[in-house]
């Protein structure tokens, strides 16, 4: 029973990272109907911006919350700019092209970031700087279930960012414009909403969340490399589909489910099937409920 709770805690902590990345996928998909393959590499760049900014600020070996949040914000700003540039240079010119072309462009951007990363950051894995120290903040008397500071930080940062996002989407003018654009971008532009700016902002916000995910993964699993985004990106995307793509709450729910399911599979001895699990979940959900858990299924009409 203790093992069960331990896996659950690990799973929720991992799941909140998936949720952060899945939010970026789902926001972009909601507005552009584009699977932004480059999102997983924005996450990788986020982790590396964290790595280098900690070095430049000389805080690589002085763990504190102050340093953690400084690095987090630098990475989020950096990736926000990157997201803006990707949208402006690669996606905007092909917005009206067929879907497959958009997808291939996204894959091209993704490959570009990965291999440029291999040249700029070097192909060997780097150790993420020690900007936050780990300790056990809660433990049962037998020590079987423990919550570490990393898990708590990841969860609280994740939840905090999601609350901020929720506020932006539902309480601000920008959020209202984003919802209108995702509902119908042509009508939105007729109502005087600057659709281009809104789409750029969506990319900026999504990329900033991915950067936060990168930093959180960096502190928990401190090995970062230019190809680290591929697998976690796919899983986060699956989380978004699982929850119902285009639906923010669904992305969070899907992320948590994915994280917990994965920890249980690893914890109960089928670790080699870890990656197949994600795709298995995906296939089952798409075959039986193609719109995802919280999505609405629309029927194509003539």
């Amino acid at each position, binding site marked *: 029973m203790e093992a069960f709770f331990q896996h659950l805690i690990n799973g929720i902590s991992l799941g909140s990272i998936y949720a952060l990345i899945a939010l970026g996928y789902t926001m972009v998909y909601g507005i552009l109907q584009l699977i932004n393959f480059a999102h997983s590499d924005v996450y990788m760049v986020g982790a590396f911006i964290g790595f280098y900014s900690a070095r430049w600020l000389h805080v690589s070996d002085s763990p504190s919350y102050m340093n953690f949040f400084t690095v987090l914000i630098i990475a989020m700003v950096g990736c926000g700019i990157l997201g803006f540039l990707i949208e402006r240079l690669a996606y905007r010119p092909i917005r009206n092209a067929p879907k497959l072309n958009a997808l*291939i462009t996204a894959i091209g951007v993704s490959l570009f970031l990965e291999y440029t990363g291999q040249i700029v950051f070097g192909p060997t894995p780097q150790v993420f700087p020690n900007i936050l120290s780990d300790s056990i903040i809660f433990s049962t008397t037998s020590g079987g279930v423990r919550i570490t500071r990393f898990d708590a930080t990841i969860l609280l940062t994740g939840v905090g960012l999601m609350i901020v996002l929720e506020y932006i989407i539902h309480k601000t003018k920008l959020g209202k414009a984003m919802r209108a654009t995702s509902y119908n971008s042509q009508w939105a532009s007729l109502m005087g909403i600057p659709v281009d700016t809104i789409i750029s902002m969506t990319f900026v916000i999504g990329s900033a969340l991915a950067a936060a995910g990168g930093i959180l993964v960096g502190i928990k699993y401190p090995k970062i490399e230019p190809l680290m985004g591929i697998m976690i990106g796919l899983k986060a995307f699956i989380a978004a589909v699982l929850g119902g793509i285009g639906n923010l709450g669904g992305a969070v729910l899907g992320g948590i489910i994915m994280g917990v399911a994965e920890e249980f599979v690893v914890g109960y001895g089928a670790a080699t099937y870890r990656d197949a699990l994600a795709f298995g979940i*995906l296939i089952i959900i798409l075959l039986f409920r193609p719109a995802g858990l919280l999505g609405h299924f629309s029927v194509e009409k003539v």
Partner: protein
Amino acid sequence: MINVKRTLVFPGLVLLACWGVGLIFPDLFNAYFQTLVIYSCINIILAVSLNLVNGFTGQFSIGHAGFMAAGAYMSAWLTMTFPHWAGPFLGINFFFNTIAGGLLAAAAGYGVGLPSLRLKGDYLAIVTLGFGEIIRVVLLNIDAVGGARGMYGIPKTASFGWAAGWVFICILTVSRLVNSTHGRAFLSVREDEIAAESVGINTTQYKVRAFVISSFFAGVAGAIFAHFLCYLNPNSFNFMKSIDVVVMVVLGGMGSISGSVVAAIIITLLPEALRPLQEITKLDFRMVIYSLTLIVLMLTKPQGLFGKLEVSDIWKKYVRRSS
């Protein structure tokens, strides 16, 4: 009336020519060049067969590497376990093993296609991607075929003759198929699924057919790959391999067989052509240039190199008219 000459004699002659060139091919060129040519052949088979699904039927599969893996492992396992089940000759065994690999891949394609081809667009893409990855992960866990260690010591049977012969069979099958009644049905599914359904075409059935045929040839390509490289590892058939094939199809033009052939050759040779650059700069810029080319091409020429035209159409349009 079946035109016997057109149906049998011409393909027979071409296959004979492939066999003949295959006999002298190793003596004419060095090993590096031979490797490039055979890799090009494998990629042509993959691209042309995927074009049947992505280009002609308008579906969106990005899991081709999974079917390639199924064919590769099936044929290699047969060769390793029953070296002489179809007679004393290595070549005949290889031929039947290739077909067995293709059939297993086709069966996998049927199993994957039947449930998932109900989905459309991006969802279908993600499901095929998922199935491709699942095939890879399952292979990683089967110890009889080496698991994560890979499979060693497969006899090197695939020569230029085999590869070129299969390329020809693949191109012939796909081109004759799309120009037949069935091909019109494939095209109608691509153009407008609802309209196709309303004139009585069983769209799901045609999609599955295209998918099964395409998977068969992916399996054949895998078998040739296995018997040329002599070593198999599940990680050769990852997501990136599938993306490579999709890129070939899109680069050449969706719905153009000659486009796929040209694009497959370009994509195979481009990294090799850029090798001198790597030696000068000491940095691996090849993949960066590859990805940039991809983005620029999508921005400037989204319909691909050939669009929907074939070499013969271009010949008619530009060369014959001017004379």
